[in-house]
């Protein structure tokens, strides 16, 4: 019996724990990716959505990389980050609670009274979405502006992280557990 309870619990937890591979750098698809929206002639909003296996830093890097790519693609040289927002998304929460009850039944079996007790825990998936509002510019980036990023430079520095992740298919594990 105990074995059965345990195996059932493990099956359920096992399903819950199975995680996908991290979101690659890609146009938004079912498992995440980037989207851009033009807001003004020189203003864009870049969004990168990661799945629950994608760490927050990766989501930020990919959004920045996309901003740089977009800057070059629109014939510009640098971009200013006007606003940056990182939204944590909590996915569905799954839990299993084993219980045990003791009861007293009526002679005919038609009624019963009992108490039962249990303990349990839950597990939720976290994922992150980054939003960058940027303005794109031509020419040399101003030296004293901390919000200004050179598109070429960003692509150069982040390329290995972005391309490496696409080719290597690196795995990351994320999750959290709690019990009550």
């Amino acid at each position, binding site marked *: *019996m*105990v074995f*059965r*309870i345990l195996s*059932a*619990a493990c*099956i*359920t937890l096992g399903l819950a724990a199975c995680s996908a591979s991290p979101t690659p750098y890609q146009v938004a698809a079912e498992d995440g990716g980037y*989207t851009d*929206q*033009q*807001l*003004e*002639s020189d*203003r864009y*909003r870049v*969004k990168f959505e990661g799945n629950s296996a994608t760490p927050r830093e990766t989501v930020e890097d990919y959004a920045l990389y996309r901003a740089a790519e977009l800057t070059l693609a629109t014939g510009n040289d640098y971009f*200013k980050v*006007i*606003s940056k*927002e990182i*939204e944590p998304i*909590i*996915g*569905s*929460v*799954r*839990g*299993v*609670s*084993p*219980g*045990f*009850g*003791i*009861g*007293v*039944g*009526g*002679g005919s079996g038609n009624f*019963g009274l*009992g108490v*039962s007790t*249990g303990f*349990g825990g*839950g597990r939720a998936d976290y994922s992150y*979405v980054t939003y960058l509002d940027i*303005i794109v510019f031509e020419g040399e980036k101003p030296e004293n502006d901390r*919000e200004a990023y050179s598109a070429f430079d960003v692509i150069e520095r982040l390329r290995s992280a972005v391309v490496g992740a696409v080719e290597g298919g690196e795995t990351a594990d994320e999750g959290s557990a709690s019990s009550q």
Partner: protein
Amino acid sequence: MVSLIVRSRHWLLAAPLMVLLGACATETPYQPSEGRYGYHEQQIEESRYRVTFAGNPSTPRETVQNYLLYRAAELTVQKGYDYFTVVDQDVERSTRYYSHGYVDDFGYPYRHGYRRYYRPSYYSSNAYPISEYASIADIVMAEGEKPADDANAYDALDVLQQLQPLIRQDDE
């Protein structure tokens, strides 16, 4: 003493029934809120307004943001101004959880002695978050060319032109 021998006549691991709540609802269209979902504005000063757009749970955050910006631009043009500056902006997320679960007791209770029962069980549950977004911006409107060095200044006509293709109004 609890014996661990059990006559398990049926052992059923009930498959959780996935109820996709809100899957049939549609996004909030670009419309005045009339108290709930849509846009709303409050004049605060001569040229200062607070603009709000609230979306239902089927409306993505980007849509809420886009509609808010569009409304700000529309209002700017309606009031006879050319550009607006966003002085303050906030996005609010409210999340509710829907949950369902099931109990499995591995079949019949094990009877021990006379009229006493021991019943092992487990409860499995899932909780699904359902979020909705509301975006709020305080804007100040002005006439003339927008200042080139102000990153928070938006040319109203430019915004209207860029976002026009995204605006979905109710067909009635």
